[in-house]
Structures are given as structure tokens and as C-alpha cells.
């Protein structure tokens, strides 16, 4: 047997080839995900500061955070932002998917247009929204005034707290809606037509068909989409960073943006790491829910 054939035989064993193929991914994830996670845990219980040796301080960072107005505000913002944005994305996503599932002219082009906000770099498209919400030249206000919906000069979107929150939520919905619509559409297409025909024969109107056939059959997809969206809406950074930098007076800060301000701009890495670790329980919940309810199968 030649050396090459022997090596080939050896590689054909699953016990050998498996670890060999999985190896690079495992090494990468251990070194650049698991290890940084451990560092984050350590940072969060230390007084780490850029360019200075750090010491263990127990839970002091977490206690300090709860005593700071900025953090308590951020904590509240994160739930308001995620709750409202995800709710709108679900409702609008179902509506849009139902429309896209019908006979349409230029179907492919319409789908392409609908998906566009989701593929364009968020940081760059948010610059466009920033300009649209500009205090002097806002096209949103111009249109609103022209249509008679707003009194001149219209709201200063990014300078007033509730308006600023509305603005960042709007952009998040704009960016996330395509994902909901296209995923739900894929599930709609898979619902057998016979179910609707049978229901129609039994006298169910469009409304009843939606509530008793469509919605129950969409549940699994809605669960997956909502769980994914929850984690990525909670951890959003780009939109708030570009649009408001967390302002005015912390009213739009999310964990990620506050964590950057504290950890990078002011150099208190320990506290910054503690802030971003607040995303971890959300992650654990989503992973647990996915594994428990959505993917019954292992992995």
C-alpha cells in the first residue's frame, strides 16, 4: 500500500475526518468568541481602564450601573425600542406578505424593491434617514406640512426625546420589515390551497380563513422570526449610533451604544463590558426557546 493510499484510508475514517473538518471552525470560535466572552466576564467584575492594570472589584460595576440614570434610562429604552419595533414588524410583515402572496404585476421587481432596505449597509442607509430627519431641511416635515398633517415647522425629530425614539424605531422597522415579510411569505406559499378551498366551501369568509387557517399555520415561522429579531433588535447599534448617538440626554441609548460610550469614549472598559453583558440573558433566552420549542431536532 502506498503512503498516499494509506493516508486516504486514514482520512476516510469519520473519527479522523470529522475533527479535521470541524477543527478550524472550533479553533476560531474558541479563540475569538469563547475566550473574549471570558474576558468580558472578567472585565465586568474588574475596574479595567484603557492602558492601566485592572483589579477585581466584585459586582461594583453592576451596582454603579444601577445607580446611574443613563443606564436605567438605557435599560428602559431597550425594552421600549425592541417591543414596539418587533410588534410593528410582525403586524406589517404579515400584511406585506399577504399582499406579496397574491397575483401581482412585476412580482419579482416588487419583491426586489421590498427586500432592498435589508441588504444595503445599515450605517449608510441610516445616513439617508439622518438627513430626512434633519432639523432644518427635513423632507419628512416638508411633506407633512405640504399635506397639512403637521404645523410648521414640524417636530425636531432627533432633538426631542419621544420623537427621537420614534425616529430610531421607524428606521429599525424600515430595515427589519423585509426579513419578516419574505420569511412569512415563504411560509404562506407552503400552505396547501386545498385548506382554503375546503374552508370556503364550508362558508368561511376571508376574515375567518385568515384567523383560523393562515395565522395558526404561520405560528412556527412567526416564532422563529420574532426570536431572531428580538435578539438583533435588542443588540442594535448602527441605527442609534448614526441617527442620535443615544441622545437627546440618553433617551435613545441602547445597551450597545451606551457600552461603546462608556467602554471606548470614556475608557471604563470594565463598566462598558458589564453593560454589553446585559445582552447575554436575552441571548440565552432566545437560544433556549429556539432549542426547546422551535428546533426539536438536536443542534
Amino acid at each position: 500500500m502506498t503512503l498516499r493510499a494509506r493516508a486516504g484510508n486514514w482520512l476516510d475514517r469519520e473519527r479522523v475526518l470529522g475533527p479535521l473538518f470541524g477543527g478550524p471552525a472550533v479553533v476560531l470560535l474558541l479563540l475569538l468568541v469563547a475566550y473574549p466572552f471570558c474576558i468580558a466576564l472578567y472585565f465586568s467584575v474588574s475596574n479595567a481602564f484603557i492602558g492601566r492594570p485592572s483589579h477585581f472589584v466584585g459586582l461594583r460595576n453592576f451596582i454603579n450601573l444601577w445607580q446611574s440614570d443613563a443606564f436605567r434610562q438605557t435599560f428602559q429604552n431597550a425594552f421600549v425600542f425592541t417591543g414596539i419595533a418587533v410588534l410593528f414588524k410582525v403586524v406589517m410583515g404579515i400584511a406585506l406578505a399577504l399582499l406579496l402572496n397574491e397575483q401581482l404585476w412585476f412580482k419579482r421587481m416588487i419583491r426586489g424593491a421590498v427586500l432592498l432596505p435589508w441588504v444595503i449597509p445599515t450605517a449608510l442607509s441610516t445616513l439617508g434617514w439622518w438627513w430626512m430627519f434633519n432639523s432644518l431641511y427635513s423632507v419628512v416635515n416638508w411633506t407633512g406640512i405640504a399635506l397639512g398633517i403637521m404645523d410648521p415647522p414640524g417636530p425636531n425629530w432627533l432633538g426631542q426625546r419621544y420623537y427621537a425614539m420614534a425616529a430610531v424605531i421607524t428606521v429599525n422597522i424600515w430595515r427589519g420589515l423585509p426579513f419578516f415579510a419574505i420569511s412569512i411569505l415563504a411560509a404562506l406559499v407552503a400552505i396547501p390551497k386545498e385548506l382554503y378551498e375546503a374552508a370556503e366551501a364550508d362558508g368561511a369568509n376571508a376574515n375567518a380563513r385568515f384567523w383560523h387557517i393562515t395565522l395558526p399555520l404561520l405560528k412556527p415561522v412567526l416564532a422563529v422570526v420574532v426570536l431572531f429579531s428580538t435578539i438583533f433588535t435588542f443588540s442594535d447599534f448602527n441605527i442609534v449610533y448614526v441617527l442620535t448617538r443615544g441622545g437627546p440626554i440618553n433617551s435613545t441609548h441602547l445597551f450597545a451604544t451606551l457600552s461603546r460610550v462608556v467602554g471606548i469614549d470614556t475608557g471604563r472598559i470594565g463598566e462598558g463590558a458589564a453593560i454589553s453583558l446585559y445582552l447575554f440573558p436575552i441571548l440565552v433566552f432566545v437560544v433556549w426557546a429556539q432549542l426547546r420549542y422551535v428546533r426539536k431536532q438536536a443542534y
Partner: protein
Amino acid sequence: MAVAKRPLLSKTMRHLALLPFLVFALFPFYHMTLTSLKQDKELYDRHAAPLVIRQGPTLEHYSKLLWETEFLTWTKNSLLVTLLATGASVAIGTVAAYALARLKFFGVSTFGTGIFVTYLVPTTLLFLPLAQVVNWLGLGDSKWALVLTYPTFLVPFCTWLLMGYFRTVPKEVEECAMVDGATRIQALWRIVLPIAVPGLVCATLFAFTLSWNEFIYALTFTSSSDQVTASVGVTSELIRGDIYFWGELMAGAILGSVPIVILYVFFLDYYVSGLTAGAIK
């Protein structure tokens, strides 16, 4: 029943119902394009209608962006980082996905769970400690830090996506080849990968897009004008103090999206199928 008798009318109504969604999705791009083409005096005229160009379009903002800023350098950086990170991630992800989909070995299910969990880890959770790791490796303020760190979210993603594709390839096809004397690696290379080409295209497209669009790592790990990527360059370098050059800013946002738009136009169906296969981030 009245509606069903007039299919054309109901079809028109549907399009009318879609209109607000389309305006919502596309208006920002329309407005950005318009702004980038307007002359400054019209752009900053508070009495001018912002929805149209009245005083003639100009390419002045684009030429300023290209020749008076570092925009081309940022784009080159973005391309370099994206191509290297995408190539490496698709390669690592392909073999890992094959191992997960086909092979039985010690720890395979733990490995699978690990990939799934890291697939869900948002980049904003680990950017602070990763910045430290990057510094320790001597890659602070270097685009190579991005080549190194982008695979942390691209590899789980590619693995997850490709695992699904490999599972749809019937095992028998491979087994036949192996009965005929091919090794497993030959069977993978000559039989499985050619069948899984749509999956590979999909993984490559999404990895490219995710990598091109990445923002927080690029913003945190790089800062010099010759190291940053297009998104970071446009959002931070074009804004100086309180004076915003809106024309250039919009031109930068548009040109910075061009590579993605080109891919998107050509591979729209792959984007749709990849998204429904679980492409999330």
C-alpha cells in the same frame, strides 16, 4: 363576490395597497440619490421643494468625494477585508458544515450546538473584549484586525446555511462514488460540492454582504483614514465638527452601497432563498 367577478379591479386594489410599503422601502434611496445630485444652493434653499431637482443636477459632490477625500482608499479596504474574510469563512464553513451534516465523531453534537449559539451571538456583545484581543495581537488600528475577526460571525453563518444544503444531497450519491473507489474527500469535491453550488453561491453572497455591511467592529478596531472601511469612512470622516456636507455624505452612502446593489441585482433570487433558509443577521 363582487370583487371576484372583477379580477382586474381587485388586482389594481392590491397594488394600491402595496404602494405605501413600496414608498416606505424606496423613498430613502430616492431622496439620497436626489440630494447627492443637487447643487448646494438648491440643497440649502429652505423654500425649494426637496422632492425634485429644479436647478439642474450636478456631479460635483461625487467628484469631490472621489478626488478630495480618501473614499477610494476606504473602498479598497472594504474590498480587501470583505474578499479575504468571505473566502476564508466560506472555506472553513464548508468543511465544518460537511462534518456536521455527514460525519459521526466525538463531540459532533456539542459542536453543532456551539455553531448554533455563536450564530446568534450579536457582534455588539463582544466588541469590547475583542478590541483588547486585537490590541494584544498588535493589530490595533489595522484592517487586518477585521480580516481576523469577521469570520467569528461569518463562519457560524456559512456553516449553518451549508449544513442545510448538504443535508438535502442524498447520501446514496456519495456512497455510490465511494463504492467505486473514491475517497470521502474526492466524493465531497467531485460529487457533493457541485450539487451544492447554489448553497455555496448563497453562502458567499451573504458572507460578502454581512462583511461589507459590518459596522461596529470596523468602527472600534480601526480609526486611521487609511485603514477604515467604506461605512466607517463615510460616517465618520465626512462629518467634521458641526458642518455637514450633505451632498458628499449622500454620494458616499450611495457609492458605498454600489457593490452590494450590483450583487443584489444579479442574484436577487439567491438573496430571497438564502434569507428564507435562515439568513438572519
